[in-house]
Structures are given as C-alpha cells and as structure tokens.
C-alpha cells in the first residue's frame, strides 16, 4: 500500500464551522412545511469531493415534535440547484416540562461528487415554526481518498413536503409479526445504485423496538432486499420523555432499475412504536 507522505495536505476539511462559538452555519426554515432561504456553508468547495458527512446541529427551545426536511444545494446565490433533496431529520419529542433546552446532532455519510470551487448551501423546512436554532456543516473528503463508488445524483422517494414527513408504515397491531407492505414509491424515476433509508417516528411518544424491511416488487410480490433494520425508541424510567426513531441508516449498495416499486414493512414488540415514517434517498 502506498501512503501519501503529507497526511494533512488537501486531506479532509470541515466547512461551515465557527470555532469561537462551536456552532455550524445557521439556517432557517420557512413557514410551516415550506423551504426557507438558502444559507451558504462555503463560497467555494476547497477540492474535488468524493464523500461528504453532513453535520446537523439543533438547539430546541420549546417542547414540540418536529419533522424537518433539508436540502443541500450548489450554485451561486440566487441560482442554487438542489444536490441532496429532503434529508429527513426529526427532533426528539418532549412531553415533560423540564430540560427544554436541547441539543441534537447527526452525522451522515454520503458518497457524492462535488467539484472544487462550487458554492454549497443549505435550506430546510419543518412542520413547526418554533424557536429552534438550526445549524449545519459539512465534512469533506477528497475524491481520490478511497475507491469508493461516488455518486452525482440523488433522488428522494416517500417524502411528503406538505407535511415534512415520510410515508407512515404501520408495523402492525399484532406484536412480533411482520406487517403488510406499505408502498414507498410506485415506480423509481431513475436508476438507483445505492439507497439510504430514512426513518422518523410516525406517532407521538414512541417507546419500544421494531424491525423494518425494505422490499422491491409489485404489490403482493415484494421481495425483501434489506431485512430487519433495528429501530429503538426509548425513554427514561418513570417519565414520558422519549426518543424518537430518528434519521438515516447506513448506505446500502443496491442496483435497482428505473421503474421499480419500493415498499416497506415492519414488526414491533407490542409497545408504543407501531408507526414509523419511512423515506428513501436513491443515489446514482
């Protein structure tokens, strides 16, 4: 193996971060379920990027359940083009009065090409317009770092911008038994080479364990392609404060042709975790 002599040269960078405040770039959402204005993360991407990690940082000021969809865009101010659409990001649900100040972070890997010099920005929408501080930054890796398959186009399936949510999958009334399939999309519009399933709570105060299967094929003929993704929602003993099943899972390489139907099903342990919102990012 040949390793570079200068390990730090043009290697990896975090952009959009303020070291003096320990905060990433602030951005705002629009009115309920409406995308806000673009906020610049960097005016110029420092090198040809092959892999990014999205840092999401939120400070929640009120007790509200929040579904959020984020876009990452490239292009000059006023001419932004969506590069990653509708990243699902759900904040914790609070039913108790204490600990209203809340920090929430996410770290999401996406192998995506971004050319050097590109301006990168972010915008978002949420189902509530509340006093939540939202911040985002990017961790950039150079194109040549690993022979990672890197993608240039991402399409979202199952997201509903009128609610800022995914498709709600009912994992069934009978505990520990796989549910019926719920369609995420009737027909993929582009070839998918890898997918990232995204999850959020489909109900208030979830508590318990569930599995989610991702399948492809016609109604009644679905074939499981990703089995038993484990999701856990939990809360402290004796409290109604809970965590929601949240965010993206890992990336799953999978070659799926245009026109494929994608569905999801699940099972639960009989606790309060019956409904899970599911959406999918398809990479090509």
């Amino acid at each position, binding site marked *: *193996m040949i390793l570079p002599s200068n390990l730090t040269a043009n290697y990896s960078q975090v952009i959009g971060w303020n070291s003096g405040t320990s905060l990433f770039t602030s951005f705002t959402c629009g009115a309920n379920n409406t995308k806000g204005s673009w906020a610049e993360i960097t005016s110029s991407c420092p090198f040809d990027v092959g892999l990014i990690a999205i840092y999401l940082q939120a400070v929640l000021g009120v007790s509200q359940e929040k579904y959020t969809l984020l876009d990452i865009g490239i292009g000059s101010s006023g001419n932004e083009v969506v590069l990653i659409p509708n990243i699902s990001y759900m904040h914790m649900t609070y039913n108790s009065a204490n600990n209203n100040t809340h*920090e929430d972070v996410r770290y999401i890997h996406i192998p995506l090409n971004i050319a050097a010099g590109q301006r990168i920005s972010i915008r978002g929408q949420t189902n509530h317009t509340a006093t939540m501080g939202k911040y985002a930054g990017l961790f950039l890796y150079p194109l040549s770092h690993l022979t*990672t398959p890197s993608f240039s186009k991402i399409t979202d399936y199952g997201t509903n911008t009128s609610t800022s949510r995914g498709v709600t999958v009912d994992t069934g009334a009978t505990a520990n038994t796989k549910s019926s399939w719920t369609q995420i999309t009737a027909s993929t519009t582009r070839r998918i080479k890898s997918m990232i399933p995204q999850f959020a709570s489909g109900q208030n105060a979830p508590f318990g364990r569930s599995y989610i299967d991702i399948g492809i094929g016609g109604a009644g003929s679905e074939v499981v392609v990703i*089995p038993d993704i484990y999701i856990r929602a939990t809360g402290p003993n004796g409290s109604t404060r809970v965590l929601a099943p949240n965010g993206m*899972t*890992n*990336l*799953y*390489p999978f070659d799926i042709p245009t026109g494929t139907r994608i569905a999801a099903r699940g099972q639960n342990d009989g606790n309060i975790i019956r409904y899970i919102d599911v959406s999918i990012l398809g990479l090509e």
Partner: protein
Amino acid sequence: MPLFPYNIFTPRYKSEGMVSASTSLTTITSNVSANTKGSWVEIVSSTAFVATGADLMISVIDGDRSFLFDIGIGGSGSETVMIPNLPACSRNGREVTSSVYYPLFIPAGVRLSARCQDSTGGGNMLFGLCLRSTSMYSPIFDKSATYGAITSTSLGTTVIPALNSKGSWVEITSSIDFDCRYMLVCWSADSNTEHGDVFLDIGVGATSSEVVLVPNVFNGSMGGTLDRMYQPHVGIPVTIPQGTRIACRAQYKGNSGITDDLEIILVTLG
C-alpha cells in the same frame, strides 16, 4: 423479452442475532464481577456468504454503566477475538441504541459470537449484525485494532475538552500496528453528567508536535440528565501509516450544559 440490465439481487444483506419472537436482539451478559468479560454468546452459527462488512446493532438495556464488548470468530469454546473492546453505554435507565457500519472482511461459513464486560458487573446488552456482501469502500479491510480502551474501567481514554477552544492533546496510542485506511471514533461515557456539543480533533505526530489529521469530529449528548453521546461510533476514512502516534483534543460549546470529559476509543481498520 427485454434485456434486464442489472442483477438487482446480487447484493446480499442478512441480519443475524435477531430475536424475532420479541422483536429484539441477542442478549449478551457481562461477568458478575465488574470489568470482567462474560461468556461468549453465539450470534450466528455459520455465516451465509462472504461478507465485506456488517452493520453492528448495539443496544444497552441496563443503564448507568459502561460496556466494552468483543466480537469473536470460531467454534464454541474456541472463539478468537476478531474485534476487541468496542464501547457501549447507557445512563438513567434508557436503552441506548446505535448502528455502525464496520467494513471488515468476514469469511463464509464461520461462527460469530460476542461477549461483554461492564463497569458494574452482570449487565446486559443486546447485539446483532447485518452482514453485507457489498462494501461501501474498497479495498476490503481484513485487519482491525482497538486503541484507548481501558478494560480495568470499561471506559475509553479520558480527553478533557475546553470551552470554545481546543484542550490539550491526549495520547490514544503511541504507535498503530498496521496501515490504517478507516477509523471508527468511539465515544463512551463515565458516570458524570456530560451534555452539550463537542468537537474532537484527531492528531498524529510526536508529543507536542501533533498535527491535526481529522478536524472537528462532531458529536453531542442530550441535555438535562440524558447524558449519552448521540453517535457513539463515527466511521471516518483516513490514511495513517503503521507506527504513527495518535492523539486527540477537544472543545465544547458552552451554553448547553457542561461537558467535563470524553471517553475516547479509536478502532483502526486496514
């Protein structure tokens, strides 16, 4: 008949250690003595295909304790540690769950098992994995090493962050054993309250001459008394030659609570 352009069923994903009857994962129990590994528990008797990696599903069901767990390979009574001392922790009775992609070669037909220790003794955690036939990365890694784990406390190496500026460097290892191409940054937690956003630098080089290799790995823990890290395992592609010293330093954001220390474990793959 139209030519079907892609073999859509080529990638394989197979979950092991799932307990479908209760929608749970396999229970692993520590030795009753604190900081002592318990017995091996089988996760899969024979892997179904050559795996280029796995998603590790980790859940801690006994709170207020820190765990270190091993993943082993081999027949019952002849297990060999394949991945040592990965951390997991929970606080205040909450089950804390994470899923981490681990890009390590696993042969077909092998038995995999797991065992754990915890800071109190007798604790339970849940574990399962999803084997993958297709990797996100190439080349496929076949070596793994863990640095910074302290088996006498079931914690990692303590790194103390400073408020909105980086703290002092803390050595995680004086020398890595092989060329590293991928690193898992693992965060454990002790019994102190730790919440707020933290930013960890990973540096290489001799003492007092450290150079930042990976800047500002971001993490945080929940506010109030929910003190556990959001993402206990963060995977990062890196390139670090054999023999390199690795150290860490950190800072935290000050208006969201306190962060008195971090417990860091680094896992290298190559």
